[in-house]
């Protein structure tokens, strides 16, 4: 044997590429070579293509559908309408929110571009041609577009299927267009706080309808094997197991005969959680034709029919003392859900976790109520890169705090510092019912203020305002401060389920004889890099190099049941499942090591990549040796093999937080807003891969920038969707996108096995208020209290005009 110096502890740790290192992504090897495997890449023999006929109107009765011309087109195999789905009871489907939704228009249409018929042909061009030939005769009905008019006594009846139903999935309905009222908090105590308040503010803060718009649209391939009675469904699914269960319930095909596979996914951001008519129609079409059927949404269909987000109109009131201590918060939300309530929230939470709306502040009391209403718009209400309704809540409180600061004549950062939940108050019970796990808000905000030179920025702003007043410049400057607290990691089974399935997540790890491993997960990456980071957790936990661990997700046949990836739940829930599965393996490895070393298992200890005899570091067995032994030399009484599975039911949510500061220069004559600087400090607890965290923050901030500064899915007064193409819907390019500065503090989650909290969505949650506060702050000295988003140049210019600039 060669005399080699044994590797040092640091070298051994490096070799593992475990937690905390900037490990390069394993996914990139295939993606940079065009070898990703996305749904539309799939080609099966005899595959057919489906395409939709969609509604021209926002609200209309369907008098007739004539499919004869379409059916006559050579290559067309079938044209499905609600009448064809009705015998199977598939013309309607349940939504995750406890409502039902039409799969294909049943008697009437309720939003523009709603699915009316599904044309199936042997070629995607032929399907599109034939869809044009389907003749639909409509009788127009009065459209309802403005959610504030939804509950007027004479408002048109949208959902005739709900006639006479005075209660829905979430309690009583007050009106034929009312879906639910959700209330939380202490109404009387809050009213009292407002009665006795020295200072109050009240503002209606609208968070406009937007869309997640991942670069890959929603798509699927359904293949039904008549002989075996088995259905295989490939699709853009953020939650493949849930899709399988829903498919089993809907289709009656036994769940073990349904194989749901989510291959590589080109971005999700909440768009790919729900079940859409395209999936159901593809399945039916495959059953009917006996051929595989592919459905690929185009961009306009994506923006106008699947999964909008937000559309929350939040009347926000804060009570405070005159020296700036908050004493109460009252919020009423009017939530526009569109034609069907298809929110992808945990089932018992019709407004998601909106009750995180007290934010990072120690409110002694609060009350919040949400009224959901139907309108003639597309269904959805998904968590677009945020935990359920958390970005709406963060926007509400963070704008509210700025408006309060302005009324008090206080600096917005100072007001926040004065009201933060203090470090020693954690675990902290919020007035609206959450238990915040950990935080150190003062340190984070102070660090941010120092890094950006906050005091100097305010001095510069003041000087600019004076110069503006003197007429020396037409440029004004805003400093947007946001301090958000997220609530992620849904969730504990005591309060979170989807259609009755508790929101745990899972991991199965198998160590092969040579010490290589495979880990299978219930989650599904859409770009977050799970194949890279999950292996890092295992590497650190059990001492096998990350490069020797393959992570597999998305195949419901091989992966343990899990609830999927959204709401930043992968790290808090699946990450914990990984650690607990790894620890089971480690415990067995310890027994094997002790047996091999001929000592008692209490006398060995784990050391990076091996177990060693306590006090005798030269006597050890590496994990590689232990893996081999697991298959031939286990201690008597122990089963051979080295594998474990873990289903993790989190005891609590995790509460990442962060301090964001945006410096913006605005030309009042053009309304053009320029982000001069954007600083983002995130505290997501233990950091698994800083490179990936920074990438997530960059991406989330860019989406926040898009939302705050330009995105909107708007409708005209008769229900035409405006701006449902990339011509009109703002997706920033590299030119508009600002540069991002990232920073961090680390406050581990005390209840998570590795202390991690999740980060992917924080930048969207915290980013939107930071941009909006910057714009509003710039105009504050001219008497502005609130300008609604999106802050595109036209609207900003108008706001300036209104203020008399």
């Amino acid at each position, binding site marked *: 044997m060669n005399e080699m110096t044994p590797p040092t502890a640091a070298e051994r740790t490096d070799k593992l590429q475990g937690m905390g290192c900037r490990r390069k992504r394993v996914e990139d090897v295939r993606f940079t070579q065009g070898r990703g495997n996305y749904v539309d890449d799939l080609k099966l023999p005899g595959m057919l293509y489906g395409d939709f006929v969609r509604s021209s109107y926002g609200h209309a009765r369907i008098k007739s559908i004539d499919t004869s011309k379409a059916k006559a087109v050579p290559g067309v195999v079938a044209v499905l309408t609600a009448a064809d789905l009705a015998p199977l009871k598939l013309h309607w489907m349940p939504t995750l929110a406890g409502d039902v939704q039409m799969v294909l228009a049943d008697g009437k249409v309720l939003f523009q571009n709603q699915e009316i018929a599904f044309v199936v042909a042997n070629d995607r061009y032929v399907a599109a041609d034939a869809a044009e030939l389907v003749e639909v005769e409509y009788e127009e009905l009065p459209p309802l577009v403005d959610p504030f008019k939804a509950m007027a006594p004479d408002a048109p009846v949208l959902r005739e299927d709900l006639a006479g139903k005075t209660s829905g999935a979430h309690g009583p309905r007050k009106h034929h267009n009312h879906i639910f009222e959700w209330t939380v908090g202490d109404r009387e105590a809050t009213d009292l706080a407002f009665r006795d308040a020295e200072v109050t503010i009240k503002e209606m803060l609208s968070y406009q309808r937007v869309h997640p718009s991942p670069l890959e649209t929603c798509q699927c391939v359904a293949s039904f094997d008549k002989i075996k009675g088995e259905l295989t469904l490939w699709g853009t699914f953020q939650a493949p197991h849930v899709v399988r269960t829903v498919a089993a319930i809907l289709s009656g095909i036994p769940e073990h005969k349904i194989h749901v596979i989510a291959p590589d996914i080109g971005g999700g951001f909440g768009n790919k959680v729900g079940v859409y008519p395209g999936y159901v129609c593809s399945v039916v079409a495959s059953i009917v034709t006996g051929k595989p059927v592919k459905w690929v949404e185009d961009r306009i269909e994506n923006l106008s029919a699947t999964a909008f987000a937000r559309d929350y109109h939040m009347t926000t009131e804060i009570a405070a003392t005159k020296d700036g201590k908050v004493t109460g918060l009252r919020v009423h939300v009017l939530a526009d859900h569109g034609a069907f309530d298809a929110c992808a929230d945990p089932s018992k939470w019709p407004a998601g976790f909106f009750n995180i709306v007290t934010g990072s502040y120690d409110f002694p009391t609060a009350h919040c109520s949400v009224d959901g209403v139907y309108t003639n718009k597309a269904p959805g209400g998904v968590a677009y890169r945020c935990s359920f309704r958390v970005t709406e809540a963060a926007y509400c409180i963070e704008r509210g705090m700025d408006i309060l600061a302005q009324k008090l004549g206080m600096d917005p950062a100072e007001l926040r510092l004065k009201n933060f939940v203090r470090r020693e108050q954690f675990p902290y019970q919020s007035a609206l019912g959450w238990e915040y796990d950990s935080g150190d808000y003062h340190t984070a905000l102070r660090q941010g203020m120092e890094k950006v030179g906050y005091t100097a920025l305010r001095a510069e702003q003041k000087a600019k305002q004076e110069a503006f007043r003197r007429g020396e410049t037409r440029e004004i400057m805003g400093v947007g401060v946001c301090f958000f607290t997220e609530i992620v990691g849904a969730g504990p089974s005591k309060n979170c389920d989807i259609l009755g399935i508790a929101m745990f997540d899972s991991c199965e790890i198998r160590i092969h004889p040579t010490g290589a491993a495979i880990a299978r997960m219930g989650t599904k990456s859409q770009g977050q*890099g799970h194949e890279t980071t999950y292996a890092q957790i295992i590497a650190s936990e059990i001492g096998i190099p990350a490069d020797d661990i393959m992570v597999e997700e998305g195949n419901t046949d091989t992966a343990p049941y899990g609830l999927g990836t959204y709401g930043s739940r992968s790290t808090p829930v699946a990450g914990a499942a990984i650690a607990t599965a790894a620890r089971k393996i480690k415990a067995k490895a310890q027994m094997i090591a002790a047996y091999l070393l001929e000592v008692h298992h209490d006398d060995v200890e784990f050391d990076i990549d091996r177990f060693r005899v306590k006090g005798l570091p030269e006597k050890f067995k590496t994990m590689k040796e232990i893996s081999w032994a697991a298959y031939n030399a286990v201690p008597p009484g122990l089963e051979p093999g080295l594998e474990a599975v873990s289903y993790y039911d989190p005891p609590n949510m995790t509460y990442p937080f962060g301090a964001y500061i945006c410096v913006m220069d605005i030309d009042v004559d053009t309304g053009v807003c320029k982000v001069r600087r954007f600083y983002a400090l995130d505290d997501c607890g233990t950091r698994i891969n800083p490179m990936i965290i920074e990438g997530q923050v960059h991406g989330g901030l860019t989406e926040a920038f898009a939302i705050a500064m330009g995105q909107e899915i708007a409708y005209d007064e008769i229900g035409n969707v405006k701006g449902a193409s990339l*011509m009109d819907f703002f997706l920033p390019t590299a030119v508009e996108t600002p540069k991002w500065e990232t920073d961090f503090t680390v406050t581990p989650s005390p209840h998570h096995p590795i202390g991690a909290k999740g980060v992917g969505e924080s930048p969207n949650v915290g980013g939107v208020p930071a941009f909006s506060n910057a714009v509003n702050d710039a105009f504050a000295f001219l008497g502005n209290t609130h300008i609604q988003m999106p802050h595109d140049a036209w609207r900003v210019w108008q706001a300036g005009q209104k203020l008399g600039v």
Partner: protein
Amino acid sequence: MAKTHVTMTVNGQAVEGLVEPRTLLIHFLRENLSLTGAHIGCETSHCGACTVDLDGQSVKSCTVFAVQAQGADIRTIEGMANPDGTLHALQDGFREMHGLQCGFCTPGMILRAYRLLQENPNPTEDEIRMGISGNLCRCTGYQNIVAAIQYAAAKLSAPQEQAA
């Protein structure tokens, strides 16, 4: 619909096929040739996911008919690796600098960056941002894509500097 015979060179290989006059180049590449690296994000020329290199220009292949590419010399992501099988500096750069997340924009981005660096081997950051402004990415916020292109630019110009 009547079909037309087309021939072209893709990644150095002569290829041919029968297409309808309206068949988009992206569909010809993906369906007929099974080159699924280039993606479809919009079909309206906005996103750049379908970008390929055609006769020395970046084109959005969702906005070119296959018949228009008759006789053309096309390069796609599948043809980006060096002849010796090693990866192109841009492919390395995107991985090294974490210039991708879901990977859906990546083939188009790399092909666009390839042409950009052919035209301007040492672009400034602003030139890179302008140069890739026809390609959307929903995941990365572009900062690391810019860094990836800078990485490749430096790597590609390094040997020449040594020679000089």
